């Protein structure tokens, strides 16, 4: 169960405590996240919403070990990420995190198969084993027959499905999706969201997703809003708004 008050179980899959992130721009300090808490269990599907500049992507980057917090800790499956050296963090990302980006971020000179194979090149799997895993991942996203196509030969929705296959192929601990439908039309966006829901429901994947789209956010188990550097549940946002209006 997802909690944002710092009272989650000690064995939560992802445990964030007192997370601060401050940027320096010019001489000014900008505090993006402040004393943020979050607990996510295995199989949870969480959507983060908030206006531009609220720190959604910053939070995702911190959870994915791409950035380091100013204060606070992030623990994933018992490993404290915030204490890791840069090289350990790289290894940790390869093992535990599957990234899905808004612009798919596929390598244009590689086929769908080769793109999906990229995370597996860092493992000790044999060529045959890698092939089996890639074919399985492409099968899950429904693109097994397009494995030899280059990204330019695929539609936006298909490119994002290849990116999802790349994210799941090494069976990571959790998936981080940064606006996964942000560059897609409604129909393709629905297909992608159905796929992500299937990964959660059928394969028990843990998904943390940033989105601007309320329709997409509603498909998650829980919507969290970033407000003034803190996470609040969607219902709470409305209460805050009413309270503000009453005042």
């Amino acid at each position, binding site marked *: 169960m997802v909690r944002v008050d710092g009272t989650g179980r000690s064995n939560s899959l992802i445990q964030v405590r007192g997370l601060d992130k401050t940027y320096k721009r010019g001489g000014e300090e900008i505090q993006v996240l402040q004393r943020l808490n979050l607990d996510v269990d295995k199989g949870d599907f969480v959507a983060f919403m908030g206006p531009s500049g609220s720190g959604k992507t910053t939070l995702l*980057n911190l959870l*994915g070990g*791409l*950035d380091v917090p100013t204060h606070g800790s992030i623990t994933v499956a018992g490993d404290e990420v915030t204490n890791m050296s*840069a*090289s350990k963090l*790289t*290894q940790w*990302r*390869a*093992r535990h995190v599957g*990234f899905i*980006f808004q*612009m798919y*971020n596929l*390598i*244009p*000179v*590689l086929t769908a198969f*080769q793109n999906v194979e*990229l*995370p597996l*090149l*860092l493992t000790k799997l044999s060529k045959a084993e890698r092939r089996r895993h890639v074919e399985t991942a492409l099968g899950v996203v429904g693109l097994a027959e397009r494995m030899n196509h280059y990204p330019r030969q695929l539609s936006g929705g298909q490119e994002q499905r290849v990116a999802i296959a*790349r994210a799941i192929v090494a069976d990571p601990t959790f998936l981080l999706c940064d606006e996964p439908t942000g560059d897609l039309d409604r129909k393709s966006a629905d297909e992608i969201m159905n796929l992500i829901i299937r990964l959660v429901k059928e394969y028990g994947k843990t998904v943390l997703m940033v989105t601007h789209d309320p329709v997409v956010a509603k498909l998650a188990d829980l919507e969290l809003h970033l407000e003034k550097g803190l996470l609040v549940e969607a219902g709470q946002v409305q209460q805050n708004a009413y309270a503000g209006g009453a005042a």
Partner: protein
Amino acid sequence: MKFRGLIFANLFRKKIRLILTVGSFAVALFLFSFLAVVKGAFGRGADIAGADRLVIINKVSIIQPLPLNYKDKIMRIPGVVAITHNNWFGGVYQDEKNFFPQFAIDPENQRKVIPELKVPDDQWANFLKDRQGAIAGAKTAARFGWKIGDKIPIKTTIFGGANTWEFNLVGIYHSEKAGGDESQFWFQWDAFEEGVPKTFKDRIGWYVVKIENPDDAPRIAKAVDDMFSNSDFETKTETESAFAAGWVKQFGNIEFLILTIGGVVFFTLLLVTGNTMAISVRERVGELATLKAIGYSDRTILFFVLAESLLISLIGGLIGLGLAMLAIPVLASALNGLLPTLILSPAILSVGLGTALLVGLVSGLLPGIGAMRMRVVNALRRV
């Protein structure tokens, strides 16, 4: 190699740019090979010169003669083992383009002093018996298709007398030393003396002296020059390698010229390749950031960039050296012996390829380090 597909896919991403960059390497390596071969050819005389030989010429210039009667006086200097004398003939075989050096030699002492130029004993015996006999270097014989028994007419340009001298080719010599000169044409001193006008008789071009101990070379050289100082024919004595080096210096500082041109070529190549790699990495910042995000280490990213630049330099280098291997023999034959032997040695090939790889490594290093240090978060924001 697991990453081969990724490296090659990136390498062939922009084919025109790849062809142009590889082409730059190929041209530079071809030019390097040619310059190195020319440098080697000019320096070869000094490299293969005998350490135990001195060359004595007229102090004024090599084209001024020395008296033949110096020979016995020089032989009496302690440490001198043997002495031989030569003269430049400077004749023309059929056409002026067919240049090769012709020397009147002293048959009695030639093989004692210059033993590395080998003539089979039976051919040498025939040479001694035949006043019109001649011995050609293997390279010159092959160049004109001569075989033993052929009559070789050579038109004199310096000594007047009979317009064309006819020689009987009785032997062919080979050099025992790799890269040794196999282009000379020798004929008997007596035939020369008989054929030249009176003013040239008893005059030689230069002496070559074999000494017992190379360490005595400075002492013996001084003794020779002192012996004939203040005479009508003062001498200049130096080691054979110093003589050969001095000969090359007449053409200017070839080594400096070649090193300067080579340096400029490789520096320009470094700039071209460095620029190519920098553009290539800048175009792929987002992709490299994605690779880092999904778990590729900084070192692996550096490896990708370096592998790419090294492959470009390797392919270009091999093409350039391959072209040089094909072109240099053709060029050597087109020069008709104007330059000494052009040899594209394994050492030149290794140095060329090594330099190309070094340029590839250095040109990939800066963009590679930049990619390695790039912050994923910043780079992904730019996608």
